[in-house]
């Protein structure tokens, strides 16, 4: 088997509190293979976003990663990177699309300037070359290169989200982390964007860590899924097994509480 792109071992994260620490992530271990679409699901407060932030070292106090935790990306120890290494590591190795990514663009810069920001910080690239590359990336997400001179407020929410994804792909990262990337979008736009990501990762070969509370969507798009409950990873399996023959009682309960779109309806009072 090829080496995993992301390997997490015994990850423990606490939120330090005045009276008591909150153990947000409890001894979590999992791998993501090259080109794999991995879904991390769970309800609010289960620790899934905390893991995403830790992988890109974006966690801030009071979040504290405990000793003995290990996060490897392409074999490199992420937790041991110094500031310089970390700067090179972000965007190039791991890029992250945040929950409200459509609001993470700078409102006073044109789309072109925002591409240039990322490209110039990581590569020796001229303004003209950056412009060409940005136009290519926009075409990839089905946005006309005319938009390079637009400001974020001139683009729709779905468009802004696709622009953020294009910027994330600018340096060919090995791993794309998406934390609820489409929660604020319509189902039709959501479907378009995720379908596109699915095509890209097959063409470009990057892996995806996809975080959402929408289990149905996750089963549709992911290869493998991890289910989190109160900081613990309670079940990891391929997507179809998680759906058809879940092993953990919590996973079963989640499915039992989700109304179905077709076929036999779930029974009332499965859990109320």
């Amino acid at each position: 088997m090829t080496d995993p792109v992301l390997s997490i071992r015994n990850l423990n994260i606490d939120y330090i509190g005045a009276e008591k620490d909150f153990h947000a992530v409890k001894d979590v271990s999992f791998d993501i293979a090259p080109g794999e679409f991995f879904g991390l699901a769970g309800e609010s407060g289960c620790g899934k976003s905390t893991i995403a932030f830790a992988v890109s070292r974006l966690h801030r106090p009071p979040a504290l990663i405990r000793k003995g935790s290990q996060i490897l990306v392409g074999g490199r120890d992420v937790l041991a990177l110094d500031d310089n290494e970390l700067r090179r590591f972000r965007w190039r190795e791991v890029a992250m699309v945040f929950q409200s990514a459509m609001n993470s663009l700078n409102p006073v810069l044109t789309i072109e300037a925002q591409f240039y920001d990322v490209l110039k910080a990581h590569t020796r690239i001229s303004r003209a070359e950056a412009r060409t590359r940005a136009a290519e990336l926009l075409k990839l997400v089905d946005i006309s290169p005319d938009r390079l001179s637009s400001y974020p407020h001139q683009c729709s929410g779905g468009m802004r989200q696709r622009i953020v994804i294009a910027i994330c792909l600018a340096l060919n990262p090995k791993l794309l982390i998406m934390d609820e990337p489409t929660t604020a979008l319509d189902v039709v736009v959501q479907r378009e964007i995720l379908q596109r990501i699915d095509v890209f990762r097959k063409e470009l070969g990057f892996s995806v860590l996809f975080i959402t509370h929408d289990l149905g969507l996750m089963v549709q798009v992911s290869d493998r899924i991890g289910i989190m409950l109160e900081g613990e990873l309670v079940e990891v399996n391929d997507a179809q097994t998680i759906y058809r023959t879940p092993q953990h009682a919590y996973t079963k309960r989640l499915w039992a509480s989700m109304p179905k779109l077709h076929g036999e309806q779930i029974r009332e009072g499965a859990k109320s």
Partner: protein
Amino acid sequence: MSDAILALDNVSKTFGRADKPVYAARSVSFGLHPGRTLALVGESGSGKTTAARLIMREYTPDEGQLLFRGKPLGKASAKALKAYRASVQMVFQDPFAALNPTHTIRYHLERPLRLHQPKLNSKERTAAIEELLTRVKLDPALLMPKYPHELSGGQRQRISIARALAVNPQVIVADEPTSMLDVSVRLGILNLLNDMKAQLGLALLYITHDIATARYVAEDIMVMYAGQIVEWGDTESVLTNPQHPYTRLLLSAVPDPDRRFSDTRFSEELNRIEFIRRQSALPRPETREVANNHFIRPMPE
């Protein structure tokens, strides 16, 4: 079917400038019946919430009228309008914003009782509050003195429902009541809405973008796009045998664990999104019955 207690009759509402109109409601007609739930589904911006606001009289129709018990609301007296407000109640999307953070739960439920049942004395009011909380399956003694921030999202939504029930309404408009709640909490709220319908004979309008939950609570469903209801009728018939291209597009985009992305059965609609959107956004006055209690406004294929 019994007569509609509340009906929209050819209601239109347009926003924006005259040269760039936004059609939030376009010749919308439907009726709400006691003991039944009607779901209104569509993507954001399709006009779902405008329909709710028209019913709540936050907006007045540009054209068409609202009928309450068969009588036009436009000519109603002040007294009749007060009765209307007590009869038609709303449950909002955001249970965090719908409650006042500076007041206790008791206060939230006491206020509508004071306004609409002024004859109750304080002992009777307390009893009524206890009954309301019990009805939404919360512990009255525990919850009454609490403030909204001390409650979970699901508990807050139950308070919103209890508040709506406080004035003995006949119609409840629930606008995305579960979209901000966790999966495991949603079902409890949906079951509660189903209980209210069955036990109190309420007429429910359930507004959502989550079609699976609409199927769980609603006998009838309407699909809205650009202010126009493009397909409506019996929920099972509409969802299993969608006839309008926009409904098929919406259904093909809805998350469904039974259909992998690689499954191309519905890709036809996804490949012509622009065409379907453009065509569905044009006024289509013609109505066609495609099956028993199942209608569409046909557009050119």
